[in-house]
């Protein structure tokens, strides 16, 4: 099955990171995350979650976790900063 992120990684020949996480920021309003390993912080200003080999921190205003599944999540709000640590 065709996967957008897999195709990008294949083209860029970064096969070693193909099983890590993916983040998509849509217009600074929606952040779609694939491959998260669990939330570590939830607040209106900051949402943090674990990923493979690290942690991702999302900062902004009036952040809402609109969907949370086993390995995906969607954040809605004014996203100011996304940082992988």
């Amino acid at each position, binding site marked *: 099955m065709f996967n957008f992120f897999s195709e990008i990684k294949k083209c860029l020949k970064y096969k070693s990171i193909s099983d890590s996480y993916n983040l998509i920021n849509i217009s600074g309003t929606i952040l779609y995350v694939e491959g998260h390993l669990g939330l570590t912080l*939830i607040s209106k200003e900051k949402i943090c979650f674990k990923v493979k080999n690290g942690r991702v921190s999302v900062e902004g205003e009036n952040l*809402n976790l*609109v*969907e*949370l*599944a*086993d390995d995906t999540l969607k954040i809605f709000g004014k996203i100011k900063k996304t940082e992988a640590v």
Partner: protein
Amino acid sequence: MKKEIKNFCQFEIKSLNQENLFNELSKKVKIYDLDRKEKDHSFFKVKLIEMKRVEKELKEKNINIISIKKSGIFNSLITKIMSYGLIVGLLFGFIFFMIQAQFIRKIEVWGNDRISDYDITEVVKKNIYSGYKKNIDTKKIENAVYNKFQSLSFVSISIYGQTLIVNVKEEIIPDEMKGNFDPIIATYDGIITNVELIQGTLCVKEGEIIQAGQTLVKPYILNSNGEEMPVKPLAKIEFDVWINGEAIHNSFKQEIFKTGNTLTQNEIYVGNLKVYEKKLTNNFKDYVVEEANENLTKNNILPFFLKTTTYYELSTKTTQEKFEDVKDEIILKAKENALQKIEEYDIIKEENVTIKQAGNLSFVSYVVTVSKTIGG
């Protein structure tokens, strides 16, 4: 943002370390619109079908559930159905009643005696088909029942509510057609005084002496071919019956009485063993004996009892009583004996007394002539 699902359930919870809770929960169900109001206070949604599962999970983890709200089209529909359930139920009930009221539910048969309900009902059922009242042709059922049972003289079908009533009348069979009849039998000895034959064959005539058990009228008539045609015997037969009462008188009477002399013997027993005896010589010519036992102890270890035997001397006195002196009394006694045999409504026509004497004995016979009637 457009929701993926329309029917969901919102939980309001209070607990610490909610990140771990949502991580664990998200492994089992998808969580929507997670809104953390405070550090220990959150709202989140799950699909309506996952509600019970999530609620159970939260309770197992001792999470304080503040509220659960259901929403969505399906939920609204269910709520409305529940809200209007009674009205809907009544409406459905009324509709069901109206529909089923159009059908026959019960068949009753009235007026039958010899033909069973079941037989008539089976014929009716075969002609009802669906049971829908408007399709029932009562005339057709009436004809079917009437034709099926020849012994019916009248059939009427009517419908009351959901009951179909079959009203029938059976033909009345005259007694003459029924066949088995018993003859008229004399119940007393007597002499026939009057006979009025209505039906049957007469076996006696006026002035004839009859005996109890004798056939008076036979249950048939002879037709022109000499054949016996069974009929119910009917006749009014009047006859005189002689009823006899007797009394006997003996001129010499022997009266036995106790003289007052007694002799008493005592014996003491232990069980069946006699241990003491006081025996006297009985010189009485005629006597009667009385025996009595009395327990001397009140235990079963030594059951002593006293047996007392008393002899009473008897004597005989002969007295003479002339018949003439008590004649009226004896005749009255004989009359009473005769009248006791008479039934309440018997008409007494004549009374006769006959006295016969043989030695000391006098026999008084009181005969009452009574008029009786059979039939009529």
